[in-house]
């Protein structure tokens, strides 16, 4: 039981995809204009990650190792297409906001990275837990970055006004603020990690 929990929490702190592994930077920067968008992107990626991890750990013994990467990419692309169709049908406005970053989950290094590094070597349950853990780590990171940018830029978190909008500095919602806020958050995270070790 204990090592199952360890797999789950590994993705959130020790191997946080954004702050430690620094993978999947494009959606991290591109969709975190607000906390809600960041969280939606994180959850969408998590859904694909869990499904692809489970399927890849199921087929790992049948796929010849020479063609494993293309095979994994096809599995991931299939789930991304499913996600695209589902989102387009049920949450069209969110699908429009996240735009090109939804199909680009295919080339998100986190998903393929976990397939190769974890799911191709472990059982179904462990791979599923790893998908949940890494997915949660990614979602938390994106929500946090989105919340910080939304708070500094517009004075709101999840559309809840904390302070009047005219005191915010718009640059944090725009492109430069994404880079700067992420740089500061990574620095903060590594400082905290260094202290706790």
């Amino acid at each position: 039981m204990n090592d199952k929990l360890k797999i789950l929490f590994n993705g959130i702190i020790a191997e946080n995809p954004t702050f430690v592994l620094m993978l999947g930077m494009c959606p991290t920067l591109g969709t975190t204009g607000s906390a809600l968008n960041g969280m939606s992107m994180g959850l969408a990626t998590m859904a694909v990650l869990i499904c692809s991890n489970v399927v890849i750990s199921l087929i790992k013994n049948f796929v010849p190792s020479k063609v494993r990467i293309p095979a994994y990419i096809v599995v991931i692309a299939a789930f991304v297409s499913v996600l695209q169709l589902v989102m387009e049908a049920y949450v069209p406005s969110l699908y429009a906001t996240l735009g090109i970053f939804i199909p680009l989950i295919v080339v998100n290094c986190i998903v393929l990275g976990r397939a190769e590094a974890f799911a191709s070597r472990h059982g179904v349950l462990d791979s599923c837990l790893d998908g949940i853990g890494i997915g949660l780590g990614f979602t938390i990171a994106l929500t946090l970055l989105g919340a910080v940018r939304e708070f500094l830029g517009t004075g709101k978190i999840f559309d809840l006004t904390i302070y009047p909008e005219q005191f915010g500095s718009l640059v944090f919602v725009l492109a430069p603020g994404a880079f700067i806020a992420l740089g500061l958050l990574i620095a903060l995270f590594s400082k905290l990690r260094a202290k706790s070790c």
Partner: protein
Amino acid sequence: MLEYISIIITAIFVNNIVFAQFLGICPFIGVSRKLSSAVGMGAAVTFVMLLATAITWLLQDLVLTPFGLGFMQTIVFILVIAALVQMLEIILKKIAPVLYSALGVFLPLITTNCAVLGVAITVVQKGMNLGESIVYAFATAVGFTMAIAIFAGIREQLAWTSVPKAMRGVPIAMICAGLLAMAFMGFSGIKIG
């Protein structure tokens, strides 16, 4: 002619792929420690992006749209790009070993460069014709090369400065990228035609 110039200026400066669209960040951060490797990566991306956009555009126009297979776009495009990169590696090794040794290490990395797939999807979404798509892909790649080259120049200098321990490496690089993005915002509002 004017539209093409407008596409080029917009793609390079106003809507720069790295600083405004947030695509291709992984190589932008990962391969920008040295100016020479940054330029190599830029060249490889230009090469692949041009070919990939032309091929995926034709596939979309001749196969996916006429047969109502639009929902297969993501799968088809990523497979085409992956196959293209593999083929390029083999062909370049045979016919242009000099170019291969210059681009070689960067080629496999490009399959997961979201800028390539991003441009291929964007041109279809924007409904560009083949000529516009190729011009757009080329200009975007030039914009990417310029961004990564400028950034590598900054990081070469940055390696010699004393930065607080927690900020070393990626964090300070991110903040520099933010300042660069701010500079690029100065181009927004430029309109031609």
